[in-house]
């Protein structure tokens, strides 16, 4: 017998039960007379890949340095794994993995010794360190280079080694500052693959980037940062839809005024933004820009909306302009 039940669905909003790996409230950093981070709030939950997206000078690296307890905070609160960064710093650092923007590998030691010496800083016994070092090298496909000097590695291999090194203490949280800057596309893909694997294994990742592609492909949630402030927060899809819409038409023309774009888009769910010599039309509904008749223009591109557009809408300039 089939029963037809009428159900009323009630939406219940539960407080986020997930473990908080990082909690920042009113986080503020000032260098002499320069305010690098102007009071930001964010939370990072366990097993997510959290991104901080923004141009150079946004305050991302400063935030990262405060997270791994290198720079002291000026004011506000910052708790990492439940411990404030003004508290037991040695303990926090023992639980972290840090991948810095520069490859600060030890050129006086070979690949395997780089890992073993690093393990000593964590008081890891030699036998355990050896085992973990071999595993890390294997994971990042560097095993056959174990006895090579660091200078003999390519840029992509060095980056993989720096990430491998950050795993030696089996960290609960890995912090990466621009992990794939300067890498060729193949190396970048390999690094992303390994980072996804780490996240799926239960490690929380926080990374900074100014590459929209990296943020949208790798991050579960992200914040957009500019000039020391957080402008928006959410999953990549949420951010795009909330701030920009669904798709974009980019166009350039010799005389933009003559196109009379504001009249063309009147009463339609389309928003207009201009940056430099390019005009962007953002469709606020899935079919807003379909069958859109455009006058004569020198350049036109119809594409999906992305994080670059989010940034443009929030700040009036592109991610990679300064």
């Amino acid at each position, binding site marked *: 017998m089939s029963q037809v039940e009428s159900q009323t669905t009630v939406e219940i909003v539960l407080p986020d039960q997930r473990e908080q790996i990082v909690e920042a409230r009113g986080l503020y950093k000032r260098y002499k007379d320069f305010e690098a981070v102007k009071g930001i709030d964010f939370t990072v939950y366990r097993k997510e890949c959290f991104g901080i997206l923004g141009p150079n000078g946004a305050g991302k690296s400063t935030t990262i340095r405060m997270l*791994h307890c290198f720079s002291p905070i000026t004011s506000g609160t910052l708790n990492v794994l439940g411990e404030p960064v003004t508290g037991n710093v*040695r303990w926090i650092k023992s639980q972290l993995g840090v991948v810095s923007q*520069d490859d600060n590998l030890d050129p*006086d030691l070979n690949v395997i*010794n780089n890992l073993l010496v690093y393990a000593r*800083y964590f*008081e890891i016994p030699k036998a355990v360190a050896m085992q973990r070092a071999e595993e890390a090298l294997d994971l990042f496909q560097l095993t056959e280079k174990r006895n090579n000097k660091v200078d003999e590695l390519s840029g992509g291999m060095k980056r993989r080694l720096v990430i491998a090194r950050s795993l030696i*203490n089996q960290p609960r949280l890995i912090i990466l500052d621009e992990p794939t800057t300067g890498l060729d596309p193949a190396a970048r893909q390999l690094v992303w693959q390994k980072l996804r694997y780490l996240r799926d294994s239960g490690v929380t990742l926080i990374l900074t980037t100014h590459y929209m592609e990296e943020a949208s492909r790798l991050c579960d949630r992200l914040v957009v940062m500019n000039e020391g402030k957080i402008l928006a927060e959410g999953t990549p899809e949420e951010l795009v839809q909330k701030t920009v819409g669904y798709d974009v038409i980019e166009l350039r023309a010799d005389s933009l005024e003559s196109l009379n774009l504001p009249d063309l888009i009147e009463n339609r769910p389309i928003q207009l933004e201009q940056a430099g010599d390019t005009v962007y039309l953002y469709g606020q509904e899935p079919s807003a820009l379909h069958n859109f008749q455009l006058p004569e223009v020198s350049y036109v591109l119809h594409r999906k909306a992305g994080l670059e557009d989010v940034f443009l809408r929030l700040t009036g300039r592109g991610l990679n302009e300064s």
Partner: protein
Amino acid sequence: MSIDFTASAPKSARFPFPNPFSRGTYRVWQRNRDAFFQLWKTELWPPFIEAILTLVAFGFGLGGYIQQRLEGMSYLQFIAPGLVMSSVLFVASFECMFGTYIRMKLEKLFDAMVATPVSLEDVVSAEIMWAATRAGLTATSVLMVLSVFGLVPSFWAIAVVPVALVGGFMLASLAIIVTSLVPSINSYNYYITLGVIPMQLFSGVFFPVSGLPENVRWLVYFSPFYPVVELSRNLFSGTVRLEALGLALWIVGLCLVSYYLAVTLMRHRLIK
């Protein structure tokens, strides 16, 4: 894991004095030791050769013209303890000038270390302790060369090695102070020309301090290197006088002050 970091919460102290014997310092010291032994082929033999060359040039060459006995010794016997300490001066200073600068700025190794439970104080202390270790090794090498030439008069001379370690620690700390202040690697020239070389020339290594005119002699007492040379000469002579204790305390006092300044200034330079 053998160490539980939950216990190492920082103690709040208004006047925290750094600790050169901490666990973190030892770990960074080990790194410097391991890196050194990767390079041993280029690093281990120069002290021997330099000692021989200086002995021959000054002791036999110059000394051949000096008939007068200095403080009851031949010129060769006179410069022997000074030469041991001269090598200490250069090894300790250069290790904590160029060695530290390269590790800090060019290789950015300190950033990597400080991302682990090791603190910046540990790293700076390890740089100084490593320089002191190298100074001790160099002093031992020079002592060996001197004994071959028959210039080690008494068993007390072995005590020169701990003096080299402590004196090296102090001179390394001074070099770290300079490192914390230099805007670029070229600026070390100031310290080398106005600090290290005058210390080497005017602290009683090559001629007795009493040889200087009275109105400038008092300047020598400002040289941190002077008590180190005097103490080693004292130990070489075999009759250890009470003033040796005074000299040792002088050196230890200089160590404490220079070490504290070194760690504090490096912290100001690197932690913003």
